């Protein structure tokens, strides 16, 4: 085993105050010296540099190698809020390396077997080519860039050569117009980009390719990588699969998706603010279709373990929700300082006692429910507004509405899909033109008079309307009418008594009595005040008054005041 020489780098009592001086101290021939050198950066202050940090000139191998990383707890991936911090260069969240001169790249690696990881790196928005990081080892270089946040203002801020690998990193190109996100020069078989996010933020003019491969082998592999904000995914054929983009040009792999909506894939894709954490599925994110890669990307840019079956494409893994409990067995649980988001399908519940939400509005999105699977849900103290087509329902037990008016808008129903709807305990007022109807079963009105205003009907559109238990009176005061618009008005089952001076009349057309005997009691008239009446009997007509006086005829016709059958006398014209 080689001797591991670990040195701290920072401006507060560390071994070296600059990365360049640490690199200058590295033994030139690590293999002969049997040494591994590890430089650990501390976020004592931002590493501002005026000359490119070069890691080069050393002789290395697989175990006598060089690692540039962050000290314990110093990286953005160690930050307490790493899961919610916006994914972009922010030195307040961890070690940051930033250039301040033009024509100055940040980090250039030319020695083999070098790993650079966990850093944020940014170049100055100044003139001249200035790469964020160049991994340029010759041959089988075994150079790895791992979990890096790279921000640049010039085309191709990240450069890979031969077999260098870039994994779990985000490249943000803040350049409007012509320019590529990444340059792959002379890649050889074994070159790899895995689990990376390469973006040009929204608000900058889309152009160029996310990945530029001007030369070298098309066997260079890109997988589980998201490229957004460029005209093309790549400018040449490359191999790989499970990639995502808003463009499909040269996107490799049958399982890649090149027609995704950029705005939906990240927390904030704008250039002014930026947060390139992947958006979860509830937020419209579509990147959960990657393939597991336990060798290169067992976890993501902040160390979140990748999904074992379907990881997210890009550098950010949206963790699957687990059955975690925030509980306060005594006192209260206080969540402050940031929003708490409940994922779809998860509950805020009080298995005993009550759950109290105070101090701010709680918004329920469409199709979400406030439910009480047992007992009751109580909403007190403020108005609850239900938008149109939304329901307050009690699938079992009862729904109780108290304390204020409930208004039903026109066209909406209080319905009971099964059983019956019962209104008890207080008057129910129906405004003019409103109906109380039952499409099936029966409607029961009890305890009070029901008054029908003029022009309204008591009707049975099918079957019959039954009035039982008390007299039904048609009040005089106009021509009250029992009407059958079509068919018959039928009176069956009992005698109908017409009081004196009452008429069975046909104001228009005719009054027809058919099928049964008509018996006129003594002193009553069959009259036609206007026009005619017709009495038709199949065999004979009997006018009952004095016994023995019968007139046998098949019909009797008479006009006003001229045709009458009276007691003991026939005056027939």
């Amino acid at each position, binding site marked *: 085993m080689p001797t591991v020489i670990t040195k701290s780098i920072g*401006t*507060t*009592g*560390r*071994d*070296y*105050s*600059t990365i*360049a*001086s640490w690199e*200058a*101290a590295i033994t*030139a*021939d690590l*293999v*002969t010296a049997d040494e591994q050198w590890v430089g650990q950066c501390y976020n004592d202050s931002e590493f501002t*540099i*005026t*000359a*490119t940090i*070069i890691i*080069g*000139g*050393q*002789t290395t191998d697989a175990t006598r190698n060089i690692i540039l990383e962050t000290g314990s707890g110093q990286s953005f991936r160690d930050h307490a809020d790493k899961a919610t911090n916006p994914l972009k260069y922010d030195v307040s969240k961890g070690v940051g390396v930033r250039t*301040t*001169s*033009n*024509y*100055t790249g940040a980090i*250039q690696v*030319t020695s083999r077997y070098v790993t650079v990881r966990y850093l944020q790196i940014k170049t100055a928005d100044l003139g001249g080519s200035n790469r964020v990081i*160049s991994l*340029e080892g*010759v041959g089988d270089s075994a150079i790895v860039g791992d979990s890096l946040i790279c921000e640049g203002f010039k085309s191709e801020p990240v450069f890979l050569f031969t077999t260098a690998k870039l994994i779990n990193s985000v490249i943000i190109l803040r350049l409007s117009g012509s320019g590529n996100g990444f340059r792959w020069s002379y890649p050889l078989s074994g070159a790899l980009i895995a689990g990376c996010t390469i973006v040009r933020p929204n608000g900058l003019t889309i152009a160029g390719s996310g990945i530029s491969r001007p030369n070298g082998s098309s066997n260079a592999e890109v997988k589980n990588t998201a490229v957004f904000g460029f005209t093309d995914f790549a400018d040449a054929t490359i191999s790989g699969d499970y990639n995502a983009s808003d463009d499909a040009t040269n996107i490799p792999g049958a399982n890649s998706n090149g027609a995704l909506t950029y705005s939906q894939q990240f927390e904030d894709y704008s250039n002014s603010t930026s947060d390139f954490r992947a958006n979860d599925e509830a937020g419209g994110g579509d990147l959960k279709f990657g393939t597991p890669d336990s060798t290169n990307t067992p976890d993501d840019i902040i160390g979140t373990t990748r999904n074992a079956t379907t990881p997210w494409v890009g550098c950010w893994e949206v963790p699957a929700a687990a059955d975690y409990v925030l509980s306060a067995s005594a006192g209260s649980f206080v969540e402050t300082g940031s929003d708490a988001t409940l994922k779809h399908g998860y509950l805020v519940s009080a298995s005993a006692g009550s759950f109290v939400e105070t101090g701010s509005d709680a918004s329920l999105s469409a199709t979400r429910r406030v439910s009480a699977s047992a007992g009751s849900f109580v909403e007190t103290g403020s108005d609850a507004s239900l938008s149109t087509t939304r329901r307050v329902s009690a699938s079992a037990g009862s729904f109780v509405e108290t304390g204020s008016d409930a208004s039903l808008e026109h066209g909406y129903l209080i319905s009971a899909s099964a059983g019956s709807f019962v209104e008890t305990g207080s008057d129910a007022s129906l405004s003019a033109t409103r109906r109380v109807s039952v499409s099936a079963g029966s409607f029961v009105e009890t305890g009070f008079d029901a008054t029908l205003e003029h022009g309204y009907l008591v009707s049975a559109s099918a079957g019959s309307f039954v009035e039982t238990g008390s007299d039904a009176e048609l009040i005089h005061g106009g021509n009250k009418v029992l009407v059958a618009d079509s068919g018959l008005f039928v009176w069956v089952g009992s005698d109908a008594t017409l009081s004196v001076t009452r008429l069975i009349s046909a104001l228009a057309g005719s009054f027809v009595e058919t099928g049964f005997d008509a018996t006129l009691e003594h002193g009553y008239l069959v009259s036609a005040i206007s026009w005619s009446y017709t009495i038709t009997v199949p065999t004979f007509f009997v006018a009952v008054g004095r016994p023995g006086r019968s007139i046998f005829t098949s019909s009797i016709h008479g006009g006003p005041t001229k045709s009458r059958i009276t007691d003991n006398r026939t005056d027939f014209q």
Partner: protein
Amino acid sequence: MAEMLISLKSKTNAAEPVKNNQLYQRGDIIVIMPDGHPWSKTERETPEWRILQVPGDPESFASLVRAEENTRADWLRRLKTLDLEHVIWSTEQKDEFDDQKPREKEVSRVELISVLVATKDRERAAGGVIDIG
């Protein structure tokens, strides 16, 4: 003001001499930082390093710390270097760049003209360079 960390001694890689061009040589500026930079104890006390304080801001010396483009195996880590034998010193500082002698000051101040006069193109060493430190 700017402060430069200078290499007094050339590094060599016996296993791959061609890489000597990528290692710091005597007179190379390792890094330039603003005046008052908190150099570490190691940086202040490493015998083969010196810290020079020079008038000007770090960006104005950016050309002294540029590397050659990596287009050939023997590319140069620095295109410019300082000819330390030609830095103009006062009498009491004449041994300032001797890594075999203890340094008298943690930070040695030199005039800008001294740096400019001593600056020269770095030479490429085919197959290696000779340690002249």
